């Protein structure tokens, strides 16, 4: 699916987003290291899938990239320009190129605006068309692209089902002709039969408009289906990055191995006979993460070194893996 081009559209280097959660004036300073030194590239026309369990920092990473949160350090290079510190006018014009689709199709649409107003709003903010007639025409086009009817334009979000609302959200994100869309769990609030509709829609829009996606989800089967590349996150760190089929069939990092083995396979013969790796324990708190490798507390292959030192990403074939096991 991806065109072979040398330059990534988005390049993230050593990005850190921390939140201050200190309670009280004189209490010791406490910091949640939600994203703690993440690097990856997204090529034009490519879908980069970001997976991980809740609390691993995948949504924070997505929100930092669209500049809803400010990073503490690191760089976000979008089309050759570092956007991690931009403000004001520059930020506004950047937002035109980078849009977001949210998880909850109920909370992300204003219930007091009609569908037409919702989709038109970004066009007005970014001053894209000269008059309302042109905007309306574009709204009708967008509604058709996402599979809704032109006469839906005067209706309110409450009149639509979850899947249809997500389509409205997609139409809104397309309104400013973006180059990049961050999809934050766009299907996890939807029913199975509706999920496939939305996934197919996102894929066909990508093909037509040449978009790049950062697709954040915890449903590993869907992420694998839609993505060209997958990044696996754990406790604010990127554990493994690589082409989706390779990562799925030959996972290298012990965490990826365990995570993939935990997916319930929708096939009784495989599911009932498959030996699974059941991870012990839970994700440590990001306020007080383990000193060495973040996964060392649950990893069956952990050594003393893993508990003391933090592994850096190593290139293994077409993959980047943060694990000492693959050091030469």
């Amino acid at each position, binding site marked *: 699916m991806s065109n072979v081009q040398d330059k990534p559209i988005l390049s993230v280097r050593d990005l850190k987003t921390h939140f201050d959660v200190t309670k009280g004036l004189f209490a010791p300073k406490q910091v949640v290291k939600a994203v703690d030194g993440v690097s990856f590239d997204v090529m034009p026309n490519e879908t980069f899938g970001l997976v991980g*369990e809740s609390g691993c920092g995948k949504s924070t990473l997505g929100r930092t990239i669209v500049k809803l949160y400010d990073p503490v350090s690191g760089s976000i290079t979008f089309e050759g320009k570092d956007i991690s510190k931009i403000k004001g006018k520059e930020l506004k014009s950047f937002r035109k190129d980078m849009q977001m689709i949210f998880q909850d199709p109920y909370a992300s649409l204003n219930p007091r605006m009609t569908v037409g107003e919702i989709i038109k709003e970004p066009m007005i903010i970014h001053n894209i068309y000269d008059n309302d007639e042109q905007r309306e025409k574009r709204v009708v086009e967008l509604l058709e692209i996402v599979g809704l009817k032109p006469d839906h334009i005067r209706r309110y979000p409450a009149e639509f089902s979850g899947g249809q609302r997500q389509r409205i959200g997609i139409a809104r994100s397309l309104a400013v002709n973006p180059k990049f869309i961050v999809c934050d769990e766009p299907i996890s609030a939807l029913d199975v039969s509706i999920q*496939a509709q939305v996934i197919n829609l996102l894929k066909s829009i990508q093909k037509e408009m040449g978009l790049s996606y950062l697709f954040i989800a915890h449903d590993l089967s869907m992420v694998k289906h839609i993505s060209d590349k997958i990044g696996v996150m754990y406790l604010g760190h990127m554990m493994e990055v690589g082409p989706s089929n390779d990562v799925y069939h030959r996972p290298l990092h012990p965490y990826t191995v365990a995570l993939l*083995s935990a*997916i*319930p396979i929708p096939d*009784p013969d495989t599911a*009932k006979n498959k030996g699974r790796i059941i991870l012990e324990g*839970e994700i440590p708190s990001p306020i007080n993460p383990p000193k060495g490798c973040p996964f060392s507390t649950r990893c069956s292959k952990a050594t003393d070194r893993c508990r003391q030192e933090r592994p850096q990403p190593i290139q293994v074939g077409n993959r980047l893996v943060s694990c000492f096991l693959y050091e030469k």
Partner: protein
Amino acid sequence: MALLEVENLCTEFKTDQGRVKAVRDVSFHVEQGEVLGIVGESGSGKSQTMYSIIGLLAANGEVTNGKVTFNGKDISRGKFKKKKEYEQVMSELRGNTMAMIFQDPMTFLNPVLKIETQLIEPLMNHTKMTKAQARERALELMRLVGIPSPEKRITQYPFEFSGGMRQRIVIAIALACNPKLIIADEPTTALDVTIQAQVLELIDTLKRESDSAIIMITHDLGVVAKLCDRVAIMYGGKIVEIGTDREIFYDPKHPYTTGLLSCIANPEDDSDHDLTPIAGSPPDLLNPPKGCPFVDRCPHAMKVCKEYMPDVKTFSPTHECACWLNDRKAGKE
């Protein structure tokens, strides 16, 4: 005789817009020691079927028809004239021979009571145990569901537990009185994948080691494939197909089942083909369609489907399906 027998169950809800027919003529049975999966999308009536059986419907809900036999005893709502009588019988059963595991452990557990109090409660209510005996049993249960250092944990409050650990507590409470039937309503939906795997493994062990029957309500076909012996597919308030796990996954007869199976991504499959979604959305149960509930989304819909509800056709002693396609007499128009 089957442990649980449900015949022609109908449940309606009174709303401002009219009566919502949430469960429409549902019949099935559960044998001792088996796991029955009930699969359906939101609004298909899978949870309301179960709430109707154990008498936990919301205040505006009402069982309008049907017979429920549990453990040889008739516990249909219709059998009792007074609500109080019914409630008495049901509260005797619930938490005792019939237990439930809910989706969200935090709404099930009382946040201001210690785990100890909540674990001991069903034992004190339903058995003649002394408090000391009940506490011993509670510790045993916590060990059984894999909670480390139970002696320390038992004096803690729910907020001190993580999501997966809370769900283990809920399972321990359900198991307290050695129930004959456990109804699990989406027990792993709120959990992360690696934690879900832990809980599924626990349920799988319990299934092998006890002779309790489990009804597993879920929308996740992966969970069904892993745990269930038989599967019922619900749509629009009806069971459209029921069969063993292999019959449902490898030889589905209803277009909805086929559609459901083809719109999930199987991670074992590497091809770049599009998923086949089911077009449209589920029917409005305020005014359910006269014929088959799936008619508006079905790629094979015929004239007869719109007018008449298809009969249930039997393919094997375990496999039944309600679809006109399986009826040769139905005109292919």
